């Protein structure tokens, strides 16, 4: 039987916490950017201007048909070169975190845009008609009438996607960036305690994601009850 030895975890907690901060940083920046850029993509896709709609559709379909692993490989290859040539960075500057953030943000915005598009389309057409009858422009109708309603309905889905995104950030392990999972792996590898550290990492992810998804579920219920009345 395997002898468990959990003693390397307590001492490693500060290091693991540093890793968790990186995971959260990537998640939060990708959610914020993803929602903003995703909204723009969704509006472009629904816009009457054909080239804009084509661009958005191409962008979304491309990112949705490539594995995240591949997207990250691309970004770890290209972004450092671009950043260095634009900003004249010292070749030794560590830009892996920036590359990861940009990669996740651009990738996730494709998924966010699909959620937001569905949200916008769920708002009755009559609302847009009413807005334009009141003399609002398309942009005003979107900003003041359609989007506020769409976002209210979308919040649970956007949060669920954020939980998925948080789980996906573990893939930055590929770039040897010490996010939470990368940190756990490093500690386990160093102490020869990979089994314990991997199980610990799994438990922590489970706890966070399960708690978060329960909160989202509760919020969804509240929202539904509110809409029903």
């Amino acid at each position: 039987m395997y002898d468990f030895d959990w003693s390397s975890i307590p001492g490693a907690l500060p290091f693991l916490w540093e890793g968790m901060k990186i995971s959260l940083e990537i998640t939060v920046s990708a959610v914020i950017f993803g929602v903003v850029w995703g909204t723009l993509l969704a509006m472009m896709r629904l816009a009457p201007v054909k080239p804009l709609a084509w661009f958005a559709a191409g962008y979304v379909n491309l990112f949705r048909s490539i594995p995240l692993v591949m997207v990250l490989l691309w970004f770890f290859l290209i972004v450092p070169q671009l950043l260095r040539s634009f900003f004249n960075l010292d070749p030794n500057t560590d830009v892996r975190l920036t590359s990861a953030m940009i990669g996740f943000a651009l990738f996730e915005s494709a998924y966010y845009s699909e959620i937001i598009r569905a949200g916008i389309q769920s708002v009755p057409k009559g609302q847009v008609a009413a807005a334009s009858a009141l003399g609002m422009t398309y942009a005003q109708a979107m900003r003041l009438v359609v989007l506020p309603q769409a976002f209210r309905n979308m919040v649970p889905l956007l949060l669920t996607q954020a939980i998925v995104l948080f789980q996906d950030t573990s893939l930055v392990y590929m770039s040897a960036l010490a996010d939470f999972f990368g940190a756990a792996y490093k500690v386990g590898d160093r102490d020869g305690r990979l089994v314990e550290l991997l199980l610990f990492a799994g438990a922590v992810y489970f706890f966070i994601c399960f708690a978060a998804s329960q909160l989202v579920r509760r919020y969804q219920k509240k929202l539904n009850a509110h809409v029903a009345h």
Partner: protein
Amino acid sequence: MSYQWNWSIFSSPVPTGETTYFGWMLSGLQTTITLSLCAWVMALALGSLMGVLRTVPNKWLSGLAAAYVEVFRNIPLLVQLFIWYFVLPELLPFGLGDAFKQQLNPLTQQFLSAMVCLGFFTSARVCEQVRAGINSLPHGQKNAGLALGFTLPQTYRHVLLPMAFRLVVPPLTSEFLNIFKNSAVCSTIGLLELAAQGRQLVDYTAQPYESFIAVTLLYVLINVVVMTLMRHLENKTRVPGYLGGK
């Protein structure tokens, strides 16, 4: 930036000489497809079983299935993969783990871990779709089945499932697409599937752009092929009278 494009790299032989770099790409593609299909069969079987369990009246069984889904949905795929590959062989009793580590060749070990991991991971998602499919049926169908003297398993077998499976084909399409994309994660344990072959090619030839473009296009190709096939299946299984039906 001056980059030396060299597309003929794919026709040049690999260092060991037995094939070309194009051959590497093809073998990677083959592994990705085999892995995904094996895992998909597993996910479909397990997911259907769990999906049915989630809807049965027995609190223990439906609770068990719910817990199953939560576990596989709330741990990142990468962590699950590492647990299957690094942790499980250590914990298996009766020397099974040692047999796994010592007697199987490393390629088989990687493939099995990857398949089981993807299978379980995807089965939790399939389970939720199957559950949603069964729950979307009118309640009267189940009652009618029972009233006609069917047992509960018979009601599932002859009344609920034939209908539910036709309804869940469209959502399962996206899960099927996901399994191909998720299989790329398995490159992290050294399994030489498509993404890993792409990285290997970069290491050997220092031609990252050609390699990544080729790999990306192959993933897009898989996507297009699967989507076309599934669209066909969706058309065949569509239920008249339902949304998107004839």
